């Protein structure tokens, strides 16, 4: 039986993150190794044979200088092991010009080899590209932290982390839910569960993961509800459903009905906010506990922000806000902040805001993303949020944990 221990403390979590970053760094370093050098050296040596050669290396690829220097070092070492000696061009029996190039899918290393007056011989090797992105952070008086959890090429709709021993991570994709286990050196896939659905997903497919106490998780997708089992191997039962989706977390109980062929909520709320049970169709919502009531903010499909308190619906334009909102609990400011995506010309950012007397004021600096933020949900306990972004350059997806702190 899969058992998840109660949530560990924040300090332990920070230690875990440290090791995660360490593991990620090692993985990236491993990716930078150059398995093609041996192969290319053998090909070059088969043309030149042992002897004195001159060699030039040019980098036309996206590899940085450190990486190309490392490849050069490894290549020279491999060539030397084949009996090649490196001399100036005027003393060389052969001249070798190596170019590090690339196309969309592979790195291509090409050697143009001139031996005497023979025609130039071309030798090349190719190997898959391993592109990666590194996170950046910005800080302010109150700090919005962004921690990279996971990257993958396939679309990610949502992500959740189960702090336990070992920690687990759940990734919601359009067609499967993948469960990962932390194994000291990194995340290892434990299970992949297929999401069955009859109707096609809408083009801008969205989804939400909600971790549960009596079973691992629920997954909400357009017109489909999936519930996991709580034993290993983890099972997933999906059914066509028009059930409402949770909009908040354990502390903010509000559900909304999702338009299963579109990318927004219909506006029908359960159990409602006081006397209010409808709001214009919206993309996202954020709840802020106040004395005696909860103020809910909705990013409506007409681009406006609706603030509902159970009695009134105040509409504002909230200049610069995007369509993704959620709320987060912290020990800073009023104790709850709204996280909102912000509009920019090319890439998105997320910023925390305080809402005082129905007016939003920035509480932190913006955290920038490489592309567009496609998902932003509060975690079950409300102290963190999970964001997914799609890198406009690589097309890959990145998932982040967001938290707010008052400590620099």
């Amino acid at each position: 039986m899969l058992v998840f221990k109660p949530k560990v403390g924040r300090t332990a979590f920070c230690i875990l993150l440290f090791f995660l970053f360490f593991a990620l760094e090692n993985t990236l370093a491993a990716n930078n190794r150059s398995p093609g050098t041996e192969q290319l050296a053998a090909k070059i040596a088969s043309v030149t044979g042992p002897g004195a050669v001159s060699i030039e290396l040019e980098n036309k690829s996206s590899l940085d200088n450190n990486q190309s220097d490392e490849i050069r070092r490894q290549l020279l070492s491999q060539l030397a092991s084949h009996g090649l000696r490196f001399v100036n061009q005027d003393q060389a029996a052969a001249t070798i010009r190596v170019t590090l190039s690339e196309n969309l899918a592979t790195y291509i290393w090409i050697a143009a080899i001139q031996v005497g007056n023979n025609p130039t011989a071309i030798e090349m090797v190719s190997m898959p590209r391993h592109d990666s992105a590194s996170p950046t952070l910005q800080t302010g008086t109150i700090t919005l932290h962004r921690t990279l959890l996971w990257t993958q090429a396939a679309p990610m709709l949502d992500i959740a982390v189960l702090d336990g021993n070992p920690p687990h991570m759940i990734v919601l994709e359009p067609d499967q839910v993948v469960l990962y286990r932390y194994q000291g050196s990194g995340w290892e896939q434990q299970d992949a569960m297929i999401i069955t659905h009859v109707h096609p997903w809408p083009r801008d497919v969205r989804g939400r993961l909600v971790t549960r106490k009596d079973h691992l998780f629920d997954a909400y997708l357009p017109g489909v509800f999936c519930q996991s089992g709580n034993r290993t191997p983890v099972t997933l039962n999906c059914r066509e459903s028009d059930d409402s989706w949770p909009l908040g977390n354990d502390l903010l109980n509000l559900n909304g009905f999702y338009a299963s062929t579109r990318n927004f909520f219909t506006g029908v709320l359960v159990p409602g906010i006081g006397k209010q049970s409808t709001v214009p169709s919206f993309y996202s919502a954020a709840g802020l506990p106040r004395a005696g009531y909860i103020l809910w903010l909705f990013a409506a499909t007409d681009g406006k922000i609706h603030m509902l308190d159970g009695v009134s619906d105040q509409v504002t334009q909230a200049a610069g806000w995007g369509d993704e909102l959620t709320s987060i609990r912290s020990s800073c400011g009023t104790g709850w902040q709204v996280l909102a995506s912000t509009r920019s010309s090319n890439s998105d950012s997320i910023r925390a805001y305080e809402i005082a007397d129905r007016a939003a004021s920035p509480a932190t600096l913006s955290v920038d993303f490489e592309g567009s933020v496609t998902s932003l949900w509060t975690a079950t306990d409300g102290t963190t949020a999970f964001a997914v972004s799609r890198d406009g350059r690589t097309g890959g997806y990145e998932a982040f944990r967001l938290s707010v702190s008052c400590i620099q």
Partner: protein
Amino acid sequence: MRRFVSALVVFSSLIQVAPCLGGTRPRYGGTLRVNMQAALVSLDPADANSADPVALDEISHLLFDTLVRLDGRGNPAPGLASTWRSDSGYQRWSFTLRNNVRLSDGTILTPQIATASLRSVNPDWRLVASDDGITIEVSSACPQLPMQIALTRNSIVQRDSGRLLGSGPFTLSSWQPGKHLILKAREDYWKGRPFLDEIDVDLNRNLREQTISLDLGKVDLIDLAPGQSQRTTSEGRATVSSWTNQLLCLVFRNGNPSEDEQKLREALALSVDRKALASVILQGDGTPAGSILPNWQSGYAFLFAPSYDLRRARELRDEVHLVTAWSLGYNGTDPSSRLLAERIALNAQDAGLRLQTSMTPNPDIRLERILITSPDTHVALDDVARQLGLPMPKLTGASTEDAYQMEKALLESRRIIPLLHVPANHALAGNVHGWSSQWDGGLGLADVWLGTSRP
């Protein structure tokens, strides 16, 4: 950063000119109004005689699907086929069809329909329909078959008494060949309904009319001729450039040139000042090319770096006693083609060659604009050879080195002189979002949505 990387970054920014408005989700609804220069008279993706394969390709993506599509890295991904596999020799391939895909008339897509569609385009293939898919047998090992299947000409089409039925995101609502078409979004599209309700396309519109219509807010998306994009951008309009997915080249009508003819063709290749063509006539919209495929695609294109060497061209010309006069044909409806042809003729004269622009039906040399239809080097080379009627070199393997050898053989045939790699350019209104440039210069309109802000 190196210049190459910088170029990639610049490129990335080009295709991101009109992405999703930051922080906002796509909006549903609205009609996208498009102007095209092409006067398409057929929407059949298998029409090999189309006068404008680029435009045909763009429209085909909206009406039809292929069994295999290409993902963001150019790798094969499931399309109408959910899975596929081959035998160990890559000669027999089985594709399993996705369930419950419907054509635009509501008919369920069957293996028989897919088989008939592919057979009409690939008479050399042996196609057999099974219960849940199709099997394709080819005469020699073809590890790239899924990439070939992804070509637009292999779109699955039911041809029914002149009607073309497809499974694409849009269906044809109105069609006046050569003039106008209206495409309507399909609610039951297997990949999700497009955001737009309709696309209204005016065909055969000259570029000047298109620009005026965009300025007046009467249209949302227009073509830009090569050389127009920089000026259009400087005038404050949003422009989008695709990958450099088109090759401007000279193609000789006659194969098997004599030794003298080969020297003259080499002299012509050396006499063309490609940098001037790119910078002066195309205003920076092209990249000098000595290869068929651009470097972003092959990774080895720099090995075929073009050279402009008038002295060597004259030497080669002087080695030939009888210099024949060539006629150079070009697309008369494209103003930039005429300018390019005239400049090439002048360059040739500088080398002592006799080259005359001509509108005769069968010129000795044609100035061609070739669409590179696949990111796969082998498939792209095969398709370029097919488009130009060139003999395809024998395929020896699937490696990058094999592709290099294929391209080298094509170039050494002296039937083709690459000139420039150019992108497809469009200008768009400020309310058009969600644009993503496709491999083949397609518009990707199924993902486009209209915002509220009009220019």
